């Protein structure tokens, strides 16, 4: 019987193994080259670039929950918005120091994950989705109503973010912001990589594939899923905090299911359950949506809708994660469906 414990080996061994498990290859290097290169190649688009980086982080957090944990949530926006409001609050009332703001965002969002996780993970399927939606909507309504705390429809603004590490000032060209977000994304990516390839991560993947068997093996499935959910939430909170800090504003539109929906679309394009799928998909989606929506938002919606339909149906490269899910599910259902389509 396999023993799967997370505390048996020293941390350094875990980290080493995590990287060994997924050998750093050209794609990984390529991504970072592109990210850093963009700074030099398209200096006028750094504002968009910063948004893209933050959204990659957000999509990454969603991938942890959906792609690895199999938790179908539409409520990631709740963590995002909560982290953002927490960071804005921190900057307004305590200090404009950015890194502490990130920590605050992560902790607050993580707490939400820790509290709601046990509740949410008792359900599955449509009920789970509805519950995540209900929680997000509740936060949204609260943010809109409690004007004195959250600024209502106008959101929170008017805070000043101090230079990163006391050295790098935030400027209007988003130069500091870009590298700040890139650095945070890099750290988050490393954390995600370790988590996913660690014994903890492997058990979680096992849970996603075959929950019954994992339970029989004695794995505390729920606790691990809650842990993953919390991590995913904290990461989304960091993304929200970054948004608040970098744009100087946080509003109620962060607390919607559309935010999660966008990230899901990014994952469909890039592929679930492979961390760099988030990079590819989110980058594609947000760059396109920015450019296309500026031209004609409704034509963009039309194209996006058609793209979604076709992507779900045909899924070529980059969507292999979903294709695998489809195949497994269809074969499992094949036992219960008669051939010939009745």
């Amino acid at each position, binding site marked *: 019987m396999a023993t799967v414990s997370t505390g048996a080996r020293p941390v350094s061994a875990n980290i080493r193994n995590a990287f060994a498990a997924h050998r750093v290859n050209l794609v990984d290097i390529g991504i970072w080259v592109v990210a850093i290169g963009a700074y030099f190649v398209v200096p006028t688009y750094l504002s968009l670039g910063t948004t893209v980086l933050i959204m990659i982080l957000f999509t990454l957090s969603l991938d942890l929950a*959906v792609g690895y944990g199999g938790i*179908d949530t539409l409520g990631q926006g709740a963590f995002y918005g909560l982290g953002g409001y927490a960071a804005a609050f921190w900057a307004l009332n305590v200090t404009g120091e950015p890194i502490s703001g990130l920590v605050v965002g992560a902790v607050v969002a993580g707490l939400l994950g820790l509290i709601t996780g046990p*509740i949410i993970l*008792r*359900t599955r*399927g*449509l*009920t789970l*989705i*509805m*519950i995540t*939606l*209900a*929680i997000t*909507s*509740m936060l949204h*309504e*609260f943010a*809109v*109503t*409690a*004007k004195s705390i959250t600024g*209502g429809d106008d959101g929170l603004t008017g805070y000043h973010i101090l230079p990163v590490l006391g050295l790098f000032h935030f400027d209007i060209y988003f130069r500091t912001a870009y590298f700040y977000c890139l650095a945070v994304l890099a750290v988050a990516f490393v954390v995600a990589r370790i988590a996913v390839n660690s014994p903890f991560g492997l058990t979680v993947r096992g849970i996603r594939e075959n929950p019954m068997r994992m339970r029989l093996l004695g794995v505390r499935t729920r606790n691990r899923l809650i842990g993953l959910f919390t991590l995913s939430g904290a990461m989304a909170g960091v993304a929200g905090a970054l948004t608040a800090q970098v744009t100087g504003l946080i509003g109620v539109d962060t607390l919607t*299911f*559309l935010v999660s*929906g966008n990230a*899901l*679309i990014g994952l*469909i394009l890039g592929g679930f359950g492979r961390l760099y799928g988030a990079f590819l998909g989110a980058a594609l989606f947000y760059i396109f949506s920015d450019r296309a929506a500026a031209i004609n938002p*409704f*034509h963009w*919606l*039309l194209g*996006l*809708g*058609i*793209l*979604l*339909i076709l*992507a*779900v*149906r045909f899924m070529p490269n980059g969507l292999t994660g*979903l294709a695998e*899910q*489809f195949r497994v*599910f*269809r074969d499992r*259902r094949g036992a*219960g*469906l*008669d051939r010939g*389509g*009745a």
Partner: protein
Amino acid sequence: MGDFLSTWLALTFNGIAFGMILFLISSGLTVTLGVMRLVNLSHCGFAMIGGYIAMAAVDYLGFGLLASIPVALLGTMVIAAIIERTLFQWTYGITELGQILMTFGLTLVMVALCNIIFGPLLHALPVPNWLTGNFQGGGIVISVYRCFLIVISGLIAVGIWYVVERTDFGARLRASVDNPRMARCAGINVRQIFSLTFTVGCGLAAVGGVLGTQMLPLEPFYALDYLILTLIVVATGGLGSLKGSFCAALLIGVIDTWGRYILPAGGGFVMYAIVLVVLLARPQGLFARA
């Protein structure tokens, strides 16, 4: 009658009218989910399409509101049948997440097309003269149109009840919801039942869309705005349970109306909180079947 009481009565009444519209719109979705376990996020889109078809009939053909209902009904059912025969074939046998994303894509297409054809402005369909105004009595003021809504929706609900509980088709439908596999093995053509039910369900949503424009005005994002509400009604009521979605729709309609009166800005909070509690206490919904 006391001011307080009459306010609450009026609110409850409006809440019931709202709930009835919600029921009409959600009834189709509840059966779709119950029979085929298909998570169809585009369902509200059919209500929207129905509303817009009626609007076109009113604006370009000079129809009155009531005359536009059959036009909207038929038009929407035709569109629904076509979509079901084509696009929805791709949704069978894929994961829930896949169904959500694909039907969400369809919703976006609907939203975009409605905007391109009809423009982004809000529309409410004109109420016929004989239905305008209010009933007044004993200090209570009730809109005639809402009364009419409740009566019509009630009749439709009774009609639905009759078909489902007292006809052969209804028995086969209930069997398909209970146990689709066994239903096939008893010779029931579940596929056909689903197609028919889906089409009729979209038609009902269309009727709800047409009748409800005073409370749910038409605009391209209609399909998304009320999607959450519809999903909540179905999930709280119990998948596949028409009785459940009827109760849930009324409950949510009333709670939402009261909630917005007490807390105009964040009234929805109360409703979401209650939904959360219900789903946690009974994850399968209030009256779940299979």
